[in-house]
């Protein structure tokens, strides 16, 4: 059995060297969909580099066996979706709502939800403009968010199979995403649109209406929730029509599973943030956080991987070991970076990510199992930072700053006409008395010395403030 070495971040070549120690029996033990023929996923980063993931040469990865499982599984997702389709599972694209519709889909037998827009990472992992160029050719504005890669992916049919159903959100979601999905519809795909409401604050704007207060302290008009419940019932009806199954008891199980996933991830995040020494790298932690959306197309195996990660982190915290130096300065990261390299680089500069606002907080909170299922899902979604005010979005960051949990804030900003681009200035204004750096994430190959220098200077300032 492979024994974890002293925790550290290692290169692709170093992982290959470690991988040589792993026995064949171990490699064949880890599979998705329990399929021994094509489901083995325990491969080192070099395997994925051979198939075109060029940025892996520049990245550093956690050296634990759990991290090897994590990366092998995540990088295998495209193949996994095709294999699912070949095995007659139903492939359901759940887009834009980030975290709720997959829970409904998972209540139906042999149905695999996934988020096609997560392909926005692919141009960066591949150091390639193939998808972005094709998206522009197909009419997506060049200034739109990198999620436009999804338009090219739908066109090419080489990154995921043609979905059996596509649910896409509109309304208080990312504007760029909605317009890109209109272009996808023009390619001939049938899209079932789902409208998500904006969360207006009851106290300020709609006092006369019955309202709902969430555990996070949000208060909003109850009719929003009623509306979402109807939308989710519509999703359910579509899925029932597709599968011929209509058993609500399975939704209860699906919610339980989602909660289990959310609890494990919360525990991983909390342990990582509170440890004296960072026990796990930011890139892996971001990947873990995004797994909450749908479990990377095999939620059971993903849960198993997360339990292994949790065990690794627990051990490291207990032994006071980690992957960064003890004096790394804790920061918050707002908006996820599509370029994974930035997460590596920030750590190389002596910073440590302990708080995140990746616009997916609705996928992190536990769903109330005591409520009617659809209402519970709606209430969970209504906590989304994506649909509220900027002040609400940064409230947890402000709190972390006040309590000294973080000493600086990094915002990664994407081109486009939506939250990422338009909200950055507002956030900077609201955080003006705090050390904030906002950088634009450049297109693949675009991280210049200038970008690096800005990050380096930000890190130096934060270190200097400690003196």
């Amino acid at each position, binding site marked *: 059995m492979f024994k974890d070495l002293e925790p550290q971040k290692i290169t692709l070549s170093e992982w*290959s060297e470690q991988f040589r120690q792993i026995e064949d029996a171990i490699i064949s033990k880890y599979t998705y969909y329990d399929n021994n023929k094509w489901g083995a996923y325990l491969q080192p980063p070099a395997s994925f580099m051979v*198939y075109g993931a060029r940025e892996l040469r520049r990245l550093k990865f956690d050296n634990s066996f759990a991290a090897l499982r994590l990366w092998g599984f995540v990088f295998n997702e495209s193949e996994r979706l095709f294999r699912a389709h070949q095995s007659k599972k139903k492939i359901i694209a759940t887009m834009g709502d980030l975290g709720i519709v997959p829970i409904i889909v998972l209540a139906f037998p042999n149905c695999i939800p996934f988020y096609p827009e997560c392909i926005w990472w692919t141009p960066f992992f591949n150091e390639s403009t193939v998808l972005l160029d094709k998206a522009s050719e197909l009419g997506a504005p060049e200034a739109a968010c990198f999620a436009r890669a999804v338009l090219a992916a739908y066109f090419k049919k080489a990154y995921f199979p043609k979905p059996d159903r596509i649910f896409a959100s509109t309304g208080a979601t990312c504007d760029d995403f909605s317009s890109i999905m209109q272009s996808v519809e023009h390619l001939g795909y049938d899209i079932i649109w789902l409208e998500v409401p904006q969360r207006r604050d009851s106290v300020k704007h709609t006092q006369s209406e019955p309202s709902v207060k969430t555990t996070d302290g949000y208060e909003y008009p109850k009719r929003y929730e009623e509306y979402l419940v109807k939308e989710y019932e519509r999703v359910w009806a579509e899925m029932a029509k597709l599968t011929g199954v209509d058993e609500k008891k399975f939704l209860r199980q699906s919610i339980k599973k989602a909660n289990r996933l959310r609890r494990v991830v919360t525990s991983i995040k909390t342990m990582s943030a509170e440890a004296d020494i960072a026990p796990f790298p930011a890139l892996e932690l971001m990947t873990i956080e995004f797994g909450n959306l749908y479990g990377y197309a095999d939620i059971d195996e993903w849960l198993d991987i997360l339990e292994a990660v949790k065990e690794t982190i627990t051990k490291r915290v207990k032994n006071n070991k980690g992957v960064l130096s003890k004096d790394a300065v804790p920061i918050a990261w707002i908006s996820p970076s599509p370029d994974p390299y930035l997460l590596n680089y920030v750590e190389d500069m002596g910073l440590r990510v302990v708080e995140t606002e990746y616009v997916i907080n609705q996928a992190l909170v536990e769903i109330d199992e005591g409520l009617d299922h659809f209402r519970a899902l709606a209430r969970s979604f209504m906590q989304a930072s994506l649909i509220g005010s900027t002040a609400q979005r940064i409230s947890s960051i402000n709190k972390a700053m006040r309590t000294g949990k973080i000493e600086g804030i990094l915002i990664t900003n994407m081109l486009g006409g939506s939250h990422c681009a338009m909200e950055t200035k507002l956030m900077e204004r609201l955080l003006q008395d705090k050390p904030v750096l906002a950088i634009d994430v450049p297109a693949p190959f675009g991280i210049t010395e200038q970008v690096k220098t800005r990050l380096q200077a930000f890190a130096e300032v934060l270190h200097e403030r400690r003196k």
Partner: protein
Amino acid sequence: MNEGNSKREILTPRERFGLLVIDEKPDRCNIIPLITSHAAHIARIPLSKYYTDGKAMAQAQIIALEEYRHDAINLFSEVGIIAEAMGSIFEYPENDLPLLKTPFLTQSSLSDIKLPNPQNAKRLPVYLEAIDYAYNAIGDKIPILAYVPAPFTTGMMLSDPNQFLIQTIKQPKLITEIMEISLQAAIEFCYHIINAGGLPVLVDPLASSSVVSPKTYEKFALPYEQRLIDFLHRYDLDIILHICGDTEPILDLFPMTGADLISVDRVDLSLVLEKLSDKIRIVGNFNTSKIAFSSPAEIRQQVGEMLKIGKESPKGYIAATGCEIPITTPVENVKAFIESAKENAWYWD
């Protein structure tokens, strides 16, 4: 280049190859004729520069790719590279491929063989440099294939070939020992190829039935092809095994190698499909004499016929030549091959 067809192309070669290896039909068949040293001819560089300078090899391959628009970079010169790194001596004629001058085992004993380090042993680093250059330049769009001699072929290049064949009968234990160290050397080379971003393609021309009997193949070549492929399967890579010449007598043995794709040469493609296509993907097999000496019109017509058969292969098919395209093959002939393949290769409407 036939613009009409190129406009229909939806996928990059990288995407097309990616679908093939997960059992999905791409927009059209992958078209990967074995354009190896012929690339030096296209790039107008001396052959000796091509096989001793990794950057030159990669650049020549990229120039050939721009000329022909096929679907992969094919990094290869000849099958002696591992044997040379293990001690066999080769000559480098300026305008010809390396020639085996002194096989190591004709001068020294097996115990003197050292396992080569691919990063600095003879021309192995040339290949690694070529992979690195090509991968950086176009690796996001094009698969980088690096051809690796399988242990049996390397073993024969370490020995006097006639003696080697006699020893398979008279001294099988010695041959087994040669095979073992050749296998280790191949594994080490493949390991470095993978870390550089290349996909190893195994070539075992001296194991063909044109050279050895099926019995010898089964006893001395197949087990080592199998073990090398097992090693590569640890990385979940899909492996092409290429054996040129006549392989009809050993077709039934190919599934035992574990190869994911089998590349054949002088054997009837219909027969290959009949025997293997439900178990393994097929690569091949346009006659290389014909590509060198036929007219473009004849090539077009015959490639069309080949595609009609090949693309019916249920597990997948790569349109290729049966062996390397001869170095001085006229450009028009190779273009005729690729244009005709592109006209006939479509799966998607």
